[in-house]
């Protein structure tokens, strides 16, 4: 069963063809000026650019996978949220148009579920190997959310950000250090050469992990004060400040995770599926794996960085399961839902 998926939630125009969890094509037209970034939308571009590209990207996804909409594709899937309304609208109306024109089943997908299930893409982790309940973590520029996966399609939010997403906080810290914007990926590189012990920043909600929130506003304030007091910045100072910020930002995530794993009366958690742009961060992966080892949880990341950023292949993976559950939407009723939650 083959599905054509479309995602225009952010500033990448993306389409993919998938068969089960296998990726046949994964086309992304990126607007990014930087190679690695956690994203966000450029308003001047959002709608117009998506409109200009969507046909080309869909066509490319089909031709790369050697599939034809008329004969091979069984269903069309599209991201309906969360994301920027005007951007989402472009993908949704395209999917609707194609579904009606070619008489295909239409599937509405939550972008966050896409990130959560992205480790399953290409059978990197076979669906049959995942035991429930498991945990799902999304760490991206737009979201930081931890969910309990009762089974595929059934999620419960365990913790989420109350202000900035992790990727966004890293981007903003980079900006404070004069490393441009968005600079989360730059911050990671700088951190590798820095000394985490040189500065002391406060770990958010230290000791109050039972609140089950992620928050970066206090850390951001402390960072901006510290950066001010350290000016003028040298290369070494920048590296040390970057290292300290990243260290504390990750320590916070791990502490909340640890609380949830030890105190949330979960029966033995089997897997932790992690998706989103910040998964590309090597240090974060290391810490998550370490936590997993400690608790006997298998930590699963997407097989390629092409699956960590925004893409449509992960939308196809979700759509496959929805297809099996026969969760289709009526093309005349589909609508975007910018504030969609997990």
């Amino acid at each position, binding site marked *: 069963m083959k599905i054509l998926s479309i995602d225009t939630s952010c500033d990448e125009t993306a389409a993919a063809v998938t068969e089960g969890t296998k990726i046949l094509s994964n086309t992304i037209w990126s607007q990014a000026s930087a190679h690695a970034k956690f994203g966000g939308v450029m308003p001047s571009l959002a709608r117009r650019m998506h409109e200009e590209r969507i046909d080309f990207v869909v066509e490319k996804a089909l031709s790369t996978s050697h599939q034809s909409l008329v004969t091979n594709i069984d269903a069309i899937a599209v991201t309906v949220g969360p994301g920027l309304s005007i951007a989402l609208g472009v993908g949704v109306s395209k999917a609707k148009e194609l579904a009606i024109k070619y008489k295909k089943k239409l599937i509405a997908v939550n972008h966050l579920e896409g990130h959560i299930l992205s480790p399953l893409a290409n059978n990197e982790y076979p669906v049959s190997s995942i035991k429930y309940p498991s945990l799902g973590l999304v760490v991206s520029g737009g979201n930081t959310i931890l969910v309990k996966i009762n089974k595929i399609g059934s999620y419960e939010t365990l913790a989420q950000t109350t202000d900035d997403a992790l990727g966004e906080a890293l981007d903003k810290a980079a900006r404070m250090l004069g490393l441009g914007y968005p600079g989360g*990926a*730059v911050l990671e590189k700088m951190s590798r050469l820095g000394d985490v012990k040189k500065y002391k920043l406060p770990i958010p909600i230290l000791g109050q992990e039972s609140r089950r929130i992620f928050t970066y506003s206090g850390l951001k304030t402390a960072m901006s004060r510290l950066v001010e007091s350290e000016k003028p910045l040298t290369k070494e100072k920048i590296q040390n400040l970057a290292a300290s910020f990243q260290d504390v930002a990750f320590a916070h995530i791990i502490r909340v995770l640890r609380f949830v794993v030890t105190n949330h009366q979960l029966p033995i958690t089997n897997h932790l599926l992690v998706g989103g742009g910040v998964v590309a961060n090597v240090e974060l992966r290391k810490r998550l794996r370490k936590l997993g080892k400690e608790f006997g949880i298998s930590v699963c990341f997407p097989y390629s960085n092409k699956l960590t950023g925004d893409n449509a292949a992960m939308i196809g993976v979700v759509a496959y399961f929805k297809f099996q559950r026969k969760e289709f939407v009526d093309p005349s009723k589909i609508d975007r839902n910018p504030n969609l939650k997990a």
Partner: protein
Amino acid sequence: MSISTSKETFPTKKMILLNSFKNIKQIIDTLQKGGLVIFPCETVYGAAVDSSNEVAVKKLNRYKERPFGKPYAIMCSSQKMAEKYVRLNETAKNIYKTFLPGPVTVVSVGLHKVAPGIESETGTLGIRIPDYKLMLNLLKKFGRPIVATSANASYRKRPYKISDIFDNISNKQKELIDLVIDAGKLPKNEPSTVIDTTLDDLAILRQGEIKLKDKNEVLSRSEENTQNVAKELWQKYDSYKGKRAIIFALEGEMGAGKTIFTKGLAKTMGITELVTSPTYSLENRYSILDTGHSLAHIDAWRMEKSDELNALGFSSLIKNRSVVAIEWAERVADEIRKFDDEAIIIWVKIKNPSTSSGRNANERLISWGIEK
């Protein structure tokens, strides 16, 4: 220096194979003719073409099988050369001073002096000055930048030796290569880091400072305090609710507490949903079910031009008499001002009184009022 790949990985007859930069004339000659050169650098093996040759750039596109719309970076020998191709702002100049030459690519506003297909669709251009003497020397002799990218096909293994490249590309790709400079196995350094400085061009310089008519000022000592200020401000203006649009135009540095203020505003309006930062999505909308009112929470930080606010449907928000909180409002001040008649516009400035060291890190000076 040794040739580290087996013979069968070099299928093309025309490919020139060098094991040093010694024959610099031959390398320059190849570049000038629009050739594609594989070269060693302080990061990974790179693929390069002449930055002034459109046909060569297209060849590089075919070689890289890049995602569409992804721009290239160019390699320059010095900041002086770079300044012929980009406009450097303060942030960029600082980064050049601190990190270059080195494995950092700095993105600035391009001057459109390179071949099409190199700059990004928004006209920005990444520049790198390598910390690799032989390469700098080549660039100086060549006299203009080269387009340089890592020599692997997109999303493939980072190339630290020639076989990393040749084992992972198709014959078609191999045939596009005109010259290879093989320096053996390179130390495992990371590819260059990209720093985008273009969002740091201060829009506020264009807009001018916002001067308030009546000076209301209060010292907030905590996040709760800031939320309470929002509550008091709301109570002052909520009689206009439903009659006119109410805009809270928020000004303040990163981490000042603009989102915290909006949280307080939402709470007092009766919104129970979690209010989070709108930086990534530009706009979050919250509705109060029983009254039918809504709060639009907008972030203008990435808006390069004021009219971009309109792309989000700002004027219809005003028409619908919505409540709007805009972070980084100073960036789009002239667009907001246009609605002076139809909307109540309250400017709120949140400042970090950071000059007084040793004070509570959570202290904020909040001032508000109507513009003069």
